[in-house]
């Protein structure tokens, strides 16, 4: 027993030493959904973060003002809930003392978490959130994705051109900021372009619902040219199947929340041939984007969705901003302020999801793509739309 205690003591000493020796670290928090409704989104964000961390730490760390720092990424699960995202953000800011936060991904969590980060003066960048409210009037909050006021019209224009659509129906999640915001933008834009009443049915559901038959019956009775689904991939799979069960044979148009590697596993044949707007197309990518996709695929065994690529870009943006500060003081508040200022000063950034220019709200101006789900279940590039 005594011997065990001695060994244990020695171990503790070694660990303490190691911690002391590696004290020069930069902590970055990740506020991501590792469980809950969309766990794959969290997993891909985490894997992209891990890949970037290994790249930099294997080269001895990140060089800031002539000094090397090891990176430490803390992944906090927000369970895909708004209230947990707020708690996770506070935990990262107060307990872990991170210099910046990457995430949350969905607008449902990013909008409230953005408020927390802005109040606590900690830089936050959401990789995937497209709702304008996330960054609006919040100088400490940034994002790597385009906005819904841009994405909505992209979907409208594409559907009008591709399906020759004059009428549409929308089914969206009422308690999801992303889904609701995008649905309303789509409705207003479609009505403006096709005359009032062109959106024949505007139906909603709640996030935990599994049966959509009543809403779909109303939609089908209105006989629209196509159905717009700005919904998360897990719900999309159920909605598309149930619509087919009710006899719907027309097309669907989706948005960026469709773009997940699990979509085809859940939805299968029913989703083939449908279109959705997204941040990048994995099939047929070139340059740095292809390098990223190939490395991710080799390491984790499946093709990364847009959220992985956006997390990669968002985290690199944070690291770029840290380097641009020209040196860290070691004082949390001062460093956070320096990072925020450096981030706001980045004029243009070449990401793997496209070139980004930032406007005064901290939002990037970048292109969107529309992809088609092929018969092999791949997301094939169809069209690129730039602002």
């Amino acid at each position, binding site marked *: 027993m005594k011997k065990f205690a001695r060994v244990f003591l020695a171990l503790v000493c070694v660990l303490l030493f190691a911690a002391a020796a590696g004290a020069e670290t930069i902590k970055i928090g990740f506020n991501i959904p590792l469980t*809950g409704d969309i*766990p*794959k989104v969290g997993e891909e964000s985490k894997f992209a973060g891990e890949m970037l961390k290994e790249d930099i730490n294997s080269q001895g760390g990140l060089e800031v003002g002539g000094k090397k720092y090891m990176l430490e990424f803390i992944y906090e699960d927000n369970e895909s809930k708004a209230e947990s995202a707020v708690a996770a953000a506070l935990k990262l800011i107060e307990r872990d003392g991170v210099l910046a936060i990457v995430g949350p991904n969905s607008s449902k969590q990013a909008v409230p978490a953005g408020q927390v980060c802005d109040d606590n003066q900690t830089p936050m960048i959401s990789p995937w959130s497209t709702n304008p409210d996330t960054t609006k009037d919040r100088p400490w909050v940034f994002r790597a994705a385009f906005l819904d006021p841009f994405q909505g019209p992209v979907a409208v224009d594409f559907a009008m051109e591709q399906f020759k659509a004059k009428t549409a129906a929308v089914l969206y999640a009422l308690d999801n900021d992303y889904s609701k915001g995008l649905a309303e933008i789509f409705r207003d834009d479609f009505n403006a372009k096709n005359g009032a009443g062109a959106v024949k049915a505007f139906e909603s*559901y709640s996030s935990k619902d599994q*049966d959509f038959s009543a809403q779909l019956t109303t939609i089908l*009775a209105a006989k629209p040219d196509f159905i717009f689904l700005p919904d998360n991939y897990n719900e999309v*799979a159920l909605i598309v199947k149930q619509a087919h*069960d009710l006899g719907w044979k027309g097309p669907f148009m989706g948005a960026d929340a469709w773009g997940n590697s699990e979509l085809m596993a*859940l939805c299968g044949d029913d989703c083939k041939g449908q279109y959705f707007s997204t941040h990048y197309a994995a099939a047929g990518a070139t340059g740095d984007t292809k390098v990223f996709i190939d490395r991710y695929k080799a390491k984790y065994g499946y093709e990364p969705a847009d959220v992985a690529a956006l997390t990669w870009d968002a985290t690199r943006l944070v690291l770029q901003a840290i380097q641009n500060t020209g040196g860290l003081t070691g004082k949390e508040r001062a460093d956070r302020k320096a990072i925020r200022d450096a981030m706001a000063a980045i004029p243009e950034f070449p990401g793997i999801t496209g070139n980004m220019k930032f406007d005064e709200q901290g939002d990037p101006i970048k292109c969107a793509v529309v992809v088609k789900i092929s018969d092999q279940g791949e997301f094939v590039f169809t069209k690129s739309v730039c602002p």
Partner: protein
Amino acid sequence: MLASIIQNLFNAFQWGSFYSLIALGYTLVYGVLRLINFAHGDIFMVGAYIAFFIATAILGMAMSLPGWMVLAMVIPATMILTALVGVSLERIAYRPLRRKGAHRLYVVITALMCGLVLENGNLALLGASRKSFPELVDKVVYSIGDVSMTNLKIGVVLSAVLVFIFLQFIVTKTKIGMAMRAISYDKFAVPLMGIPIDTVIVFTFILGSSFAGLAGLLFALSYPILDPYMGAMVGWKAFIAAVVGGIGDIRGAFLGGFLLGFVEILVVAVFPSTYRDLIAFAILMVILCIKPTGMFGVAGTTKI
């Protein structure tokens, strides 16, 4: 307009079938033990997962088997294994408490905890990733005008009706059914008459859990995305359906389930979906206010 109404009635029949199947399990256990088995919704979830693993295992071994044959194997296997889970819960969690003569409140709390253990155990064991249930039935869509039905939906409604008739027969016409009813009247006198009370209780759990397993399988076929929390909300609502029907009564659970299904679907068909739970439960509350024991319930001295 008429087509939409008929279509929504069909939708409501299918959705109500699930509430009915789950409510039957609640009501059986309550009828015998006066115990609200709050873990029942999660046993339903476990049933769906068991069906998933058996189905994928069979499909993995023999790809050439037609879907209906796989289904014919999956149904009994799922029901047996889910019944085992239910019986183990009774054995591990409820029986020791009953033996010690614990107040009914503690058993209900234990049931709640069992449900959470099942949910989070599943989350820890299998991860948060969704499972996609394989398509065992070749879906056929029958369309008459603007009204569509699938063979699967018809099967679900038929199953619910058959299960109800079967349970009603067991409880009212068989000897073991008589024993079950006797226990609910007086569980202290029944053992004195030489009726093995534990056997009857285990039988009750077998019945309730195996049909929860069947419901899980049918649910997974209809809504083929499984997640660890899928049983929680449906389970609670089915419990409420059972109470409105008059908990402890088989007919009550059956009709209560369909009633809730109808109200939910028809509310969504007319109003925005936000109002669904608001209006649905307001209607159920009114029913309970008028008849506090539920539609078929008899006034009991102590209910929880």
